[in-house]
């Protein structure tokens, strides 16, 4: 049996699946249920400074984009940080950590960008026995209007400054949660790194509007006829999150900075994607909010079975395994030639490969043979773009075949040399290096 125990920046948990700071981790009742269900750890829903608790809207907080069969593909929310008194949260965190010592207990924090405010809350958290803190620099709605959350995360200097305060006034490991609502995630990660962060977690939610109600022309969800952008998450954001994780994992300045992966993780496969691209563990919210805490069973079993099947002993062996395979476009080998191939035995003749290639690509799939419906790739036109593979409803019916050395590309007439050559040295590149 594979060993799923996780040691993320010194924080131990029985598995790498944590619940992200969000509604599921708002109070002891939920967190205890999560631990009973088997979650490895939680990041307690963001606490703010002491004082009158903030208030949430009394209208809808969540919106969803569904697939045709009502699966939640994307999800957004406009809930703020905790609306419960600080001391109540502190008491519960203390008790839960005491009762569940083997689970990771990280506390998310968001207070105004003032040194004193951070100093004050850090001491209170330290007394709870929590394993670490996560700085919420990502919340894109509501709090950002008050100069917190994403409003901090979007300014690298602020990220660095607050991170430094936290490291200065606390012994706890500091995870900086990054907002994706920026143009270059590396800038935020570098700032956190400069400030001394033990890790970054990413991504927070993305500014979003779910849809428009076509009867009332207000947006969904709306409160009293008006809506505001909410934070987008769920399966739809996963590819965006993966790219950001990979960008930070392979950036020269942040290489080696531990990453807690977040963004649409629904299954163990999603988790492996994040871990392979550099995440040391993962955090989940939408999957739990869609299916309940029991989804962790499949994540744990699936990861364990996957590792067994690959002969992998520990999760750490997977961390970053795919990072080296991520590169810039300019370094892609232009001498690798692929052609699509249709397996006629599994082809069901829907013709979608043909029509999309014909309408939108390279006219490289014919649709008739001897008067019969028949779909075939024309090597002399095929550029190997993968569109047909992507739209084919039958898995592995269309595949890409890499031409071997010595084989001629029917489209260009050129023979595959096997030599690596990229854009940086290409003859058509006026800026080429010799």
């Amino acid at each position, binding site marked *: 049996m594979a060993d799923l125990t996780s040691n993320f920046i010194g924080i131990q948990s029985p598995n790498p699946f944590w619940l992200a700071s969000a509604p599921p981790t708002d109070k002891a009742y939920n967190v205890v249920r999560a631990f009973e269900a088997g979650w490895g750890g939680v990041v307690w829903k963001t606490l703010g400074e002491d004082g009158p608790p903030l208030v949430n809207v009394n209208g809808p907080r969540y919106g969803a984009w569904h697939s*045709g069969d009502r699966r939640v593909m994307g999800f957004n929310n406009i809930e703020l940080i905790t609306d419960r008194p600080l001391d109540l949260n502190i008491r519960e965190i203390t008790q839960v950590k005491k009762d569940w010592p083997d689970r990771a207990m990280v506390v998310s924090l968001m207070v105004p960008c003032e040194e004193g405010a951070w100093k004050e809350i850090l001491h209170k958290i330290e007394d709870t026995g929590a394993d670490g803190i996560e700085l919420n620099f990502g919340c894109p709605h509501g709090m950002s209007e008050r100069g917190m959350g994403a409003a901090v995360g979007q300014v690298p200097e602020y990220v660095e400054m607050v991170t430094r305060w936290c490291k200065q006034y606390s012994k706890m490991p500091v995870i900086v949660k990054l907002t994706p609502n920026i143009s270059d995630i590396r800038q935020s990660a570098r700032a956190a790194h400069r400030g001394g962060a033990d890790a970054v977690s990413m991504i927070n939610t993305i500014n979003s509007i779910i849809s428009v109600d076509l009867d009332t022309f207000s947006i969904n969800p709306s409160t009293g006829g008006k809506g505001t952008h909410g934070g987008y998450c769920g399966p739809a954001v996963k590819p965006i999150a993966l790219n950001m994780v990979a960008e930070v994992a392979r950036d020269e300045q942040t290489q080696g900075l531990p990453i807690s992966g977040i963004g649409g993780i629904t299954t163990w496969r999603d988790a492996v994607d994040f871990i392979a691209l550099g995440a040391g563990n993962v955090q989940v919210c939408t999957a739990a909010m869609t299916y309940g805490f029991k989804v962790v069973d499949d994540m744990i079993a699936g990861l364990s079975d996957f590792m067994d099947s690959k002969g992998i002993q520990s999760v750490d062996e997977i961390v970053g395994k795919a990072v080296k395979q991520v590169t810039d476009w300019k370094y892609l080998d232009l001498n690798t030639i692929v052609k699509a191939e249709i397996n006629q035995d599994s082809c*069901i003749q829907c*013709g*979608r490969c043909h*029509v999309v290639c014909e309408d939108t690509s390279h006219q490289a799939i014919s*649709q008739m043979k001897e008067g019969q*419906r028949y779909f075939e790739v024309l090597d002399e036109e095929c550029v190997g773009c993968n569109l047909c593979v992507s739209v084919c*409803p039958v898995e592995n019916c269309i595949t890409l075949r890499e031409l071997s050395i010595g084989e001629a590309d029917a489209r260009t007439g050129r023979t595959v040399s096997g030599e690596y050559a990229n854009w940086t040295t290409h003859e058509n590149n006026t800026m080429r290096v010799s």
Partner: protein
Amino acid sequence: MSQIQPTVDIQTARLNADEYMKNFSDMHPPLGATAALVEADRCYFCYDAPCTKSCPTGIDVAGFIRMISTENNIGAARLILEENILGGSCARVCPTETLCEQACVRNDQDHRPVSIGLLQRHAVDAAMAADKQFFEREPDTGKRVAIVGAGPASLSCAHGLARNGHSVTILEARDKSGGLNEYGLAAYKMLDDFASREIKYILAIGNIDIQYGQRLGVDFDLASLQSDYDAVFLGIGLGSVNNLGLENEDATGVINAVDYIAQLRQSNKLADLPVGKRVVVIGGGMTAIDMATQIRLLGADEVTLVYRRAKEAMNASEDEQEFTQVKGVTIRYNAKPRRIQTNEGQVFGIEFESTRNDASGRLEGTGETFSLPADMIFKAIGQVFETPSNCKFELDKGRIQVDEHRKTSVAGVWAGGDAVCDGEDLTVAAAQDGKLAARSINQYLGH
């Protein structure tokens, strides 16, 4: 061989009210809103979709299913009705398993086609429930067309002509429109008086007048129509029923299936229908299946459907055969009726001879016989076209010969539905006949 006892057991009210309700509920219950979305999502929106090519009326199946998937049921219905104004009844009665659904590429992937019939029904029902009409009459042309018969072919033709601005008069022999949609087919395929609701929806286009009790060759003749109208369409169906050619065929208890089904379809109270305890149905088409299934659902104890050829030769699709068997009907293949057994003018049994194909493929008796007790025997061995008196058309295989525009050999006269030679005896084929004839007539009338 044991002697069959000539005891006859024919009764009404064999079931209680709940059982009738259950037995004659929808054969394929309609899809709910979510189920329709999920099913529509299964459609691959194929290029040059095979389902469309397999629809006799050429409905853009992938197109309308895509609209359902975007919750545009009204748009979907418009696309369906544009090609087939009887899309609602076709969705219910088409043997989709041998038409569009047989062509669905999903068959090759997971052996379950997209439920095209149910989706079509979902869309058309939505439009009818909203009383949404899609077509408007063009300005009045002053041209008048007579249509004989008010079945599916005629209604399709009438709607097309009315759209083009012509005035249509339908002359129907019975006292209701709809043809076999109203008088034939199994009751569980056309619930809630759908046939007449659909006709009302079709007639809403306006300028279609229906006169009942008007039988061609009896109440009027073709010549008068030719002189009184600018064009004529004949959708007169098949006039008579094939006989077994056996002695005692006129005995009490030997019944034409089409007559019994018509009675059933018009019945307000199924408990009033006479039902034998042991019933034999002879035939191999849809009428035979519908008859056997329905008499079984009316409470008959033993229903045997006897077909003279092998299973593969049966006109009724495999799905239909399976359906009737699931409902408790026994199918016996390769047996032909030889002797109707009667006692004082009342049938009590029937003797069959087993058959096989000889070396040349011709059906022959084996000499082996068996008897089945029967309180009722239903004949469903096909109908034949009967030329109305004073009509002279070229016939082809015993039915009216028409060209690809559904034009007969007689100038100014078109025909369609079961009365024409290439008819597949399907509602959907009749709808297509009517549509094509209307186009051709419209052209003939100079529009």
